[in-house]
């Protein structure tokens, strides 16, 4: 069996990925190209006794070295030396796509041209003579339609026959006329190179100023740069022409020749469907309402709809959790094995994140649809003006929306969606501002605080919270782009607005599944690792032996009381031993937990049946019905269970207070006290860094009142914390500004490719948060503001700041040169 290595190249929007999906099926492997954040998709498949390995190169308009994608694509061609290059061309926009085709042909490797979207071209009245193109360019030309699944077999056969007829292959070259002597000169000087690449191609690339090729050649020819410069200058002085634009013009002219010889456009100048649609979608007055409508729809379908879906998926996760609890070692009175605690902690951390998978799946599907349809660049087109003001880019819209610019979202997919932003400075700024958006996992925390302190003003407070984020993000973007990111490269906003296309079902599902998988795989592993560390920090060093003794004494006292009271029951024999009581307590708790998790009558009956089967003698104590003897025990075991839970909670709280994390919380108090945070709040912030959901759990357990079981967490907090609404506002502001979770920080690391920026993304917002909340808290205390007043002032000040920046004409230095050392 023969191996064939194929590189799939094409311009953006040529439908390359649909062709790739059509050829390789779902057997795809995604990784990053070494050292960069560009996706590398590889598909391996067999056809007719040949093993084909196909790599999907990033879409590039050209094959020079002016963008990361181009460098990556060219690096692959040079390093991996593929047998065949498959060039996907949009048949409905053939002229511009042929520009890249000429550059690929010049590389000197066999090329197969795939005319994709032939159906679209036909519909638009574009008639293409592919036979003629094949003759003119000396390569196979295959007509296909990735969306309709046409042409797969023909492409495979062309790849195989091209790879087998290398003996018939003659190097392709364009006659560059007046540039030829200069090409020859460079080519002669690199004649001795050990690189196996086509020498003429390298010579042309050197003259073009292609940094990648020059770097490669520099290893052998240290003077290559100087040589190139002399030749370029010479050409300029003789012909008054710039080499780069001369070459580009020549290639465009060549593409034009093909266009005129082999393509007939019967509908030229006629309005296409895309033109008609754009008249509405990009209309001066309608564009923004339509955009907000689409955003709202995405939000409704993914966040709201996805949340509803989690109602169905959550029981599955809960069942997994119950299963883990069931198989973990049982508690013995107040002695809970650490192993069981740990298992519950880990499963809770994992569940908190997996719970979002349905939301992400819908979200990623909708994004894939928008990408495939071609709305993304239009969104950038509409909003670029606003974002530009703040150092961002039109393409920042989507990451910010995903992050939760509208009410709620998740920063993980948001940061991942920054990949496509061409402008490096804006991309970095977007990565660093998406975490300020409204994280969905923070919402329960806000609800807790609002429920505890702002019952009548909940709506207005929630409005402030959910809209404040976009303003803070814009301000932060402006701050960091004009300071930390000032020296970063920016790219011109030259962006194609491709024709609209119907998305393919397969493509959408594949893309969503791949992104969800990255989320699960990359994020979950790291979150779990962090969860282990946090668990340890919360457990050690544990409580002192004196308090342990005190708790033991308290329990013994209750046990003695229990024993005294149940003696009169005829069932006394069944509960007269400590071991029996311990199992009965576990039995009772487990029954209660399971009953509380079910809402249906049928479910409740099933649970009853289960428990009856597992231990009939205990069951009568839990459901004594009319058995008065059993009732006595039922009453007493309930009392005992209550005492036990109280002791357990106290042990837990003491453990948290003494733990390393608790100590850290206390150590931060001198700083955080200006914002009104005590150590408990600090611990809640610290411990929820693995997943923000756990902030509620931590606070809940710290503030839970031991006497009244039915009290809700927010009521307990209002009653027991000693906080004022002003405290709550300070906490909310801090939560608004702090980064959502470690998972987000991991994707920040993935996207920026640097730990330095990850640390920046952690500590900059925290500093900002502590400053802002301290300022509000201190001013609020001084002027005796109410909570709502404090929040209103905070909100007003950031809105005014953002508007000031936005409306202030931005003037930047855009000239250079002159005398140095003036």
């Amino acid at each position, binding site marked *: 069996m023969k191996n064939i290595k194929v590189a799939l190249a094409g311009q953006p929007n040529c439908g390359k990925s649909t062709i790739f999906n059509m050829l390789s099926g779902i057997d795809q492997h995604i990784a990053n190209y070494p050292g960069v954040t560009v996706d590398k998709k590889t598909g391996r498949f067999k056809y007719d006794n040949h093993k084909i390995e196909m790599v999907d190169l990033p879409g590039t308009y050209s094959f020079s070295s002016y963008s990361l994608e181009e460098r990556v694509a060219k690096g692959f061609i040079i390093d991996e030396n593929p047998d065949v290059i498959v060039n996907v061309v949009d048949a409905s926009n053939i002229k511009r796509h042929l520009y890249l085709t000429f550059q690929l042909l010049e590389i000197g490797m066999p090329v197969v041209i795939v005319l994709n979207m032939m159906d679209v071209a036909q519909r638009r009245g574009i008639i293409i003579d592919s036979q003629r193109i094949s003759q003119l360019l000396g390569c196979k030309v295959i007509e296909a339609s990735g969306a309709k699944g046409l042409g797969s077999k023909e492409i495979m056969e062309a790849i195989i026959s091209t790879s087998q007829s290398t003996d018939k292959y003659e190097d392709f070259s364009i006659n560059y006329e007046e540039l030829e002597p200069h090409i020859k000169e460079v080519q002669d000087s690199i004649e001795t190179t050990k690189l196996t690449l086509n020498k003429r191609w390298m010579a042309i690339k050197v003259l073009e100023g292609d940094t990648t090729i020059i770097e490669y050649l520099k290893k052998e020819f240290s003077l290559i740069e100087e040589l190139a410069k002399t030749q370029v200058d010479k050409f300029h002085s003789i012909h008054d022409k710039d080499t780069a634009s001369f070459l580009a013009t020549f290639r465009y002219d060549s593409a034009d020749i093909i266009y005129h010889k082999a393509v007939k456009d019967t509908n030229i100048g006629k309005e296409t469907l895309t033109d008609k649609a*754009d008249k509405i979608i990009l209309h001066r007055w309608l564009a923004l309402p339509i955009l907000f409508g689409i955003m709202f729809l995405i939000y409704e379908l993914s966040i709201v709809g996805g949340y509803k879906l989690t109602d169905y998926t959550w029981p599955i996760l809960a069942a997994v959790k119950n299963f883990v609890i069931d198989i973990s070692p049982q508690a013995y009175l107040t002695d809970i094995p650490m192993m069981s605690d740990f298992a519950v902690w880990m499963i809770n951390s994992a569940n908190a994140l997996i719970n979002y998978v349905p939301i992400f799946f819908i979200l990623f599907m909708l994004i894939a649809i928008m990408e495939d349809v071609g709305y993304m660049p239009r969104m950038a087109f509409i909003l670029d003006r606003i974002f530009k003001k703040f150092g961002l880019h039109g393409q920042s819209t989507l990451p910010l929306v995903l992050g939760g610019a509208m009410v709620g979202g998740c920063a993980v997919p948001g940061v991942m969606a920054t990949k496509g932003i061409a402008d490096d400075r804006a991309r970095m700024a977007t990565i660093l501002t998406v975490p300020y958006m409204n994280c969905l996992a923070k919402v329960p925390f806000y609800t807790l605080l609002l429920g505890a302190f702002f019952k009548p003003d909940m709506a207005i407070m929630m409005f402030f919270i959910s809209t404040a984020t976009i303003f803070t993000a814009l301000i932060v973007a402006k701050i960091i782009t004009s300071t930390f990111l000032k020296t970063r490269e920016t790219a011109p906003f030259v962006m194609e607005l491709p024709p609209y296309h119907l998305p393919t079902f397969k493509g959408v599902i594949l893309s969503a599944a791949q992104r969800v998988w990255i989320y699960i795989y990359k994020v979950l592993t790291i979150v779990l690792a962090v969860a282990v560390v946090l668990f340890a920090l919360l457990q050690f060093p544990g409580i002192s032996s004196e308090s342990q003794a005190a708790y033991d004494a308290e329990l013994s006292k209750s046990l003695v009381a229990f024993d005294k009271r149940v003696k009169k029951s005829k069932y006394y024999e069944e509960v007269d031993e400590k071991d029996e009581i311990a199992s009965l307590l576990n039995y009772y708790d487990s029954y209660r937990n399971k009953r509380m998790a079910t809402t249906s009558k049928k479910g409740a009956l099933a649970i009853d049946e289960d428990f009856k089967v597992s231990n009939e003698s205990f069951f009568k104590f839990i459901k004594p019905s009319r058995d008065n003897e059993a009732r006595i025990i039922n009453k007493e075991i309930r009392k005992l269970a209550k005492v036990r839970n109280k002791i357990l909670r106290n042990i837990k709280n003491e453990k948290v207070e003494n733990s390393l994390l608790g100590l850290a919380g206390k150590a931060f108090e001198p700083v955080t006290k200006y914002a009104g945070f005590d150590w408990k709040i600090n611990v809640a912030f610290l411990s929820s860094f693995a997943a923000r959901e756990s902030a509620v759990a931590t606070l809940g357990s710290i503030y839970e009142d031991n006497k009244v079981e039915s009290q809700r967490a927010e009521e307990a907090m209002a009653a027991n914390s000693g906080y004022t609404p002003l405290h709550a506002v300070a906490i909310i502001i801090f939560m608004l500004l702090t980064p959502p979770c470690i998972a987000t920080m991991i994707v920040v690391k993935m996207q920026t490719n640097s730990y330095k920026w990850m640390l920046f993304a952690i500590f900059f917002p925290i500093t900002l948060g502590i400053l802002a909340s301290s300022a509000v808290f201190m001013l609020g205390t001084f002027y005796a503001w109410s909570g709502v007043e404090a929040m209103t002032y905070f909100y007003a000040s950031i809105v005014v700041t953002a508007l000031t920046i936005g409306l202030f004409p931005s003037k930047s230095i855009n000239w250079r040169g002159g005398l140095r050392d003036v």
Partner: protein
Amino acid sequence: MIKREKKYLDIIKSGKKVKIAGVNSGGKLMHKLLDMGFIIGATIEVIREAPLFDPMELRIHNYNISLRKSEARLIEVSDI
């Protein structure tokens, strides 16, 4: 002969067609523009401005592209 003022792309009204007479840029932007087909002699049609007046949408070589006005200002054009 009357010496005519040079005209740049950013002030061309929607719906008008012009020819590129020169690109006053260098480096990265120049290369990007060349790759996208902004070569001397190419015909550009201005389709529309964005709803907030910037950037602008153009048609060149039979496809649509968006360009900020700050970049369009560097492209010298002449009437057809």
